[in-house]
């Protein structure tokens, strides 16, 4: 009798999303990435509660102490507790990573969409501009931008954001070019829909998948770039607890107090690994070719 019942159609949007979520949850490595990300997010949010000491309080008598029961990860060159600095450093790293990528996606998506939709001289000009940005090694261009703006966390954030724009602009432009000539878009135009509406309601949703994947992976890259710039003294300035800056300041003590260098590096590696695992998992989960 059941087979004679009319089939109830599932709502299209929710089953696609649930499909992707189900595939993601089956991927063990992606789960590990998600867990790492959540741990770091919680650490960043609860930093004042979790940190045993003030991250910028100096206790010079306890300089370069190895890990002990008093200082779980030891102290740095100025007697500051490493564990507290690493916990508070989570905030800076996630801040720079998420904000710079969001900035890059926002600017890149808009410009890429316009470039793909309008075509013509605007598209040519914009793509040449992106080629010029990509002509520089990313870190070098970020260094050049920070040189102009001056060292500091905010300027480093802008620099990393600017350097990341071409990747997202290209993704969105490619999607726009593919979708622009589809029948449903032409139908909308024939019905008199304004370009802005077409862009936001029909074209941009098609770019979401690669943007989400690239964005997640991009946060990991941004955190590495930020650590590199701070290591060189161009990013976060003392006494700000930022992992790259901690490595930069601690590198002269690597032979006498290697723990100063070891733990911030592990923190960077685990965070970036988490985003990479999650990004890879999202790429597989959202890949339409795997949808059966």
């Amino acid at each position, binding site marked *: 009798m059941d087979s004679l019942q009319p089939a109830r159609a599932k709502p299209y949007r929710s089953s696609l999303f649930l499909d992707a979520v189900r595939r993601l949850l089956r991927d063990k490595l992606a789960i590990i990435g998600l867990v790492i990300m959540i741990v770091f997010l919680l650490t960043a949010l609860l930093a004042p509660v979790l940190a045993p000491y003030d991250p910028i309080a100096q206790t010079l008598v306890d300089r370069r102490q190895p890990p002990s029961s008093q200082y779980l990860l030891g102290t740095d060159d100025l007697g500051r507790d490493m564990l507290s600095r690493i916990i508070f450093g989570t905030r800076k790293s996630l801040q720079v990573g998420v904000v710079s990528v969001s900035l890059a996606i926002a600017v890149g998506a808009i410009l890429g969409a316009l470039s793909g939709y309008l075509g013509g001289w605007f598209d040519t000009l914009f793509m*040449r*501009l992106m*080629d*010029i940005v990509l*002509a*520089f*090694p*990313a*870190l*070098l261009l970020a*260094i*050049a931008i920070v*040189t*102009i*703006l*001056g060292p500091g966390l905010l300027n480093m954030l802008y620099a990393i954001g600017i350097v990341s724009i071409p990747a997202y602009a290209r993704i969105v432009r490619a999607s726009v070019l593919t979708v622009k000539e589809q029948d449903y878009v032409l139908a909308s135009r024939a019905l008199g829909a304004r370009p802005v509406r077409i862009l936001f309601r029909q074209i941009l949703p098609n770019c979401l998948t690669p943007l989400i994947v690239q964005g997640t992976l991009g946060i*990991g890259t941004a955190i*590495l770039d930020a*650590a*590199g710039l701070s*290591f*060189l*003294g*161009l990013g976060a300035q003392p006494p700000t607890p930022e992992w*790259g800056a901690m*490595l930069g300041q601690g*590198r002269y003590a*690597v*032979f006498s107090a*290697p723990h100063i*260098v*070891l733990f*911030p*590096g592990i923190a*960077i*590696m*685990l965070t*970036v*690994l988490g985003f*990479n*695992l999650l990004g*890879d998992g999202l790429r597989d989960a959202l890949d339409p070719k795997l949808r059966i």
Partner: protein
Amino acid sequence: MTRYIIRRLFLIIPVIIGISIVTFGMLRLIPGDPAQVMLGEHATEEAMEALREQMGLNEPLVMQYVHYMGDLLRGDLGRSIQTNRPVLEEIATRFPATFELALGAMAFATFFGVLFGIIAAYRHNSLADMGIMLVALIGVSMPIFWLGLIFMYVFGFKLQWLPPSGRLTVGIELLTMPQAWGMGESGEGAWRAFLDFMSGFYVLDALLTANWTALWDVVKHLIMPSVALGSIPMAIIARMTRSSLLEVLSEDYIRTARAKGLKERAVLAAHAMRNALLPIITVVGLQMGFLLGGAILTETIFSWPGLGRLVVNRILSRDYPAVQGSVIVIAMVFVLVNLVVDISYAYLDPRIRYD
């Protein structure tokens, strides 16, 4: 093929102009008076005015750019504020060190990346495959400057297997090529300049002068920085090799080759790798940009006397002409490397030429 090369060369021109505009703008976009920023707070008005005259900062912007381009085309990158030496001279003495480091890192990354990728592909879904991919994933997530510091501590300090810094041990003599070939202080202009430049490549120098002690010393100094710098590219190349080879190994022509009775080594070399090579070469070429940028960090840790270290030191001392010159040279090298990669890609895959 020639038409493709000419087309690619034409496409480079706007990029080169764009690079020159960006590096030109670097100095002019600094908030405040560039002369004051470069000379510091205690600089006298006369000194600042002299610097403005020397750098042409008083002229209209368009004229400044015209002079800048003219100087660039003549190879004049200005003078360093810190040392008062021509920037091109300072770059020329340091560039071989950076390029040697980048080549060493690229050689390490390509050799081991392709090797591990092949092993992972052939032992697909085994423990070896998963192990290699996990190590690759961790490798891609590690900051190279941190890896360099760990290497320094373990191999340079604890085990004392490798020297922790520099390019050559103090006390080991390395004859330059002009010296070894008996040119003394003489020698004709361009050829002499070329030999002097090439003598910055220590491995080449040691090889051509048959100085085996120096060669071993130079290689020992090159190992740690090259491995640290090449770790991320190696991981990326391994992953790309594995996925590219897996795709190719499932193709019909591989099955045919095996059915013909070819040994697996021949299948790999003659059929599989040839077709898998294209995406791998793209990735290898793309990594060159990472190596040129990453060399800045590696050189800082290992006190490698290269261009990257020059950039960092001169940024901190506000010697902007030197920074500007270094940025433009590195960017140009990157553009040229990408051009070579594109052309070799078109050579290997005829379909690209007719795009």
